[in-house]
């Protein structure tokens, strides 16, 4: 019984000292760095067929056995993160109790002999009176240091000052923020979802496809796509993708909003993002004709492959096909219908009717200007729900604040000792900081210089 108890205590001690060590941290961080690289060289989450054709059957089996193809969600990658979490928690518990005592002490104790032995120390001699020195120095130091304590000594006085005790906690904020980030990620992966939905203009949908293959999710509201618009720069590069959406709850519209890339819609914890678009393959072309002679407008539906008669009896037109990207003299014209135009008494010519450029056909300088309406678009939306985001964002803020505290602030204490010697006073200025000793050295030097002159 006793022996057992001793043994278990031993195991706990060993585990504790294993997880408390910074060596483990170094190992874990390097391992995380090294393993993360794997997933950047091997594309993740592709179809088995794609993998087999690249790596062959055997390698595919081995890799998929150890989850290489979805490595950031694999059990071993999560294990590494878990070890890091335990490492952070144990390490913080171990150090925090002693740091707590240092930070929240009521009356900090100062030890003059410790300051006398410091290497960051300056001495000079001054002829001012001791009392005057005390007033002047105290006033000067209180500008910079919050806590000041004066001890009278037999031959003069000692002045201690310090600040930034609490900055010793900065590093724990950083470590805590790492925990927040991982926790937020975990919450998101358990309770959140990420899905996609394509909605044709005019249509309403409620069921989204989830990222995890084959699964679907029914939203509490319907999404109607009122319109989708894409606009382009002169160079042909896309300028804006915009979807007009209406959310419908119990047959009533509850929210109407346009979304764009970078301007999503958020409703009851669900976020809707513009993510792709496309046009529904058309079954016919809706054509417009403008006659130069009479100024009349005509509209006509043309089925693929069917010959139609042009208005004002000027000839015939056959719509051959629809293409997503047409090309005219090296310019991408986007979606277009390709057609054969047979004008009266002329040989047939091939023409392009780009949906984006209704005036394109003007260039032909014919009697009729022909254009085609663009077929209806569908908008591709990404729909997400992530209840862990606020944890992650809190982690982000904590991490930046914690890093600023840890890196650029320190617990500084200084000591001034003034000793009468005959008619003069000897002044010693010494100080320490728990970080950035180069900076502290400069500070002590500057302080000593200033005190010598006042």
């Amino acid at each position, binding site marked *: 019984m006793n022996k057992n108890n001793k043994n278990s205590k031993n195991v706990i001690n060993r585990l504790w000292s294993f997880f408390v060590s*910074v060596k483990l941290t*170094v190992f874990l961080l390097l391992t995380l760095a090294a393993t993360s690289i794997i997933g950047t*060289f091997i594309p993740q989450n592709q179809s088995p067929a794609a993998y087999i054709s690249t790596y062959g059957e055997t390698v595919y089996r081995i890799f998929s056995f150890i989850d290489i193809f979805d490595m950031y969600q694999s059990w071993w990658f999560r294990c590494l993160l878990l070890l890091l979490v335990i490492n952070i928690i144990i390490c913080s518990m171990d150090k925090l109790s002693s740091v707590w005592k240092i930070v929240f002490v009521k009356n900090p104790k100062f030890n003059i002999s410790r300051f006398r032995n410091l290497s960051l120390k300056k001495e000079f001699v001054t002829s001012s009176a001791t009392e005057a020195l005390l007033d002047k120095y105290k006033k000067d130091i209180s500008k910079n240091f919050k806590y000041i304590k004066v001890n009278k000594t037999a031959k003069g006085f000692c002045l201690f000052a310090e600040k930034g005790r609490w900055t010793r906690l900065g590093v724990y904020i950083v470590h805590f923020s790492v925990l927040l980030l991982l926790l937020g990620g975990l919450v998101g992966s358990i309770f959140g979802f990420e899905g996609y939905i394509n909605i044709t203009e005019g249509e309403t949908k409620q069921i989204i496809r989830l990222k995890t293959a084959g699964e679907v999710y029914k939203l509490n509201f319907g999404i109607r796509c009122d319109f989708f618009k894409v606009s382009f720069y002169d160079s042909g*590069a*896309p300028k804006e993708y915009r979807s007009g959406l209406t959310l419908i709850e119990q047959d009533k519209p509850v929210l109407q909003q346009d979304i764009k890339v970078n301007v999503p819609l958020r409703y009851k914890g669900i976020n809707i993002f*513009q993510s792709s678009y496309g046009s529904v393959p058309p079954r016919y072309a809706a054509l417009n004709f403008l006659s130069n002679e009479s100024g009349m407008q005509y509209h006509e539906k043309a089925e693929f492959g069917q010959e139609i008669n042009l208005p004002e009896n000027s000839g015939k037109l056959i719509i051959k096909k629809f293409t997503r990207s047409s090309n005219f003299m090296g310019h991408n014209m986007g979606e277009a219908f390709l057609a054969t135009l047979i004008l009266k008494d002329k040989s047939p010519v091939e023409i392009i009717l780009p949906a984006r450029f209704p005036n394109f056909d003007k260039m032909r300088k014919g009697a009729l200007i022909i254009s085609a309406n663009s077929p209806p678009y569908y908008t591709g939306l990404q729909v997400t729900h992530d209840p862990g985001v606020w944890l992650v964002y809190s982690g982000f803020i904590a*991490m930046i604040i914690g890093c600023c505290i840890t890196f650029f602030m320190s617990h500084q204490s200084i000591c001034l000792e003034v000793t009468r010697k005959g008619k003069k006073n000897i002044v010693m200025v010494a100080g320490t900081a728990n970080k950035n000793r180069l900076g502290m050295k400069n500070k002590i030097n500057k302080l000593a210089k200033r005190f010598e002159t006042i």
Partner: protein
Amino acid sequence: MNSSNLLSITTFIYGLAAFLYIAAMVFKKPLILKPATWTAITGCAVNAAGISMRWIESYKLGIGHAPLTNLYESLIFFALVIVLLYLIIEHKYKYNLLGAFITPLACLAMAYASLSPNINDRIQPLIPALQSNWLIAHVVACFIGYAAFAISFGISLAYLLKKKQGSKNFFNHFPDADILHELNHQLIIFGFLFLTIGIITGAVWANSAWGRYWGWDPKETWSLVTWFVYATLLHARMTRGWTGKRIALLSMVGFLAVLFTYFGVNYLPGLHSYGVLEKTISP
């Protein structure tokens, strides 16, 4: 005079500054250091003027946006921050010989931006995914971080050479190894903070553009790898056995990770998210 001219001139000024710094070091002529510093300052001013011109030109083209949106623009900004940060350090600590290890990096970045056939220096309009203020914050933070790491790389190199050569030659004009070590640490924590901010602003941007703050795409992953390397370095200082030499080596490895995040990732399968988005969103 347009922005391209100014930026081409910058390359040569940085080259001249690098030449002067190196000459001062190799021929032990401290007198040359003053003109070297002034050359670097001039280069910095011309570089900044070039970037401002480019900004104005983009507005004249009617597609106005901050010039921080493609590889070319990020490289010229990178060079500017490297030299600016270096000049601040030089002014603060008066270690002007270090310029020999740092100005060549800025010159290389500029030369690569202007000469590489793969880099397009035309002012382009912003595609929808890039129309976000988070983009500016993200790029600025990342490149301040990268610049600090670049300087840390230069200092680490100087440190290792000094340790290896002892005081036999021109390295004895350098600051003490201990001071280099401390200065290196200051730069690494500065860089780490800005890399952290860069990754975070990137995540927030991704979340506002397509609804997820992290997606393990190669560029994101490599920036995290870089972050892990420098976090390792910060902790390694606390374990015995990790001497200044190993820390300097690790800092150089960290900078290689930076370079890979920056350039190498383009050669990997898959694209950075806004690339992916453009791919899926274009018909």
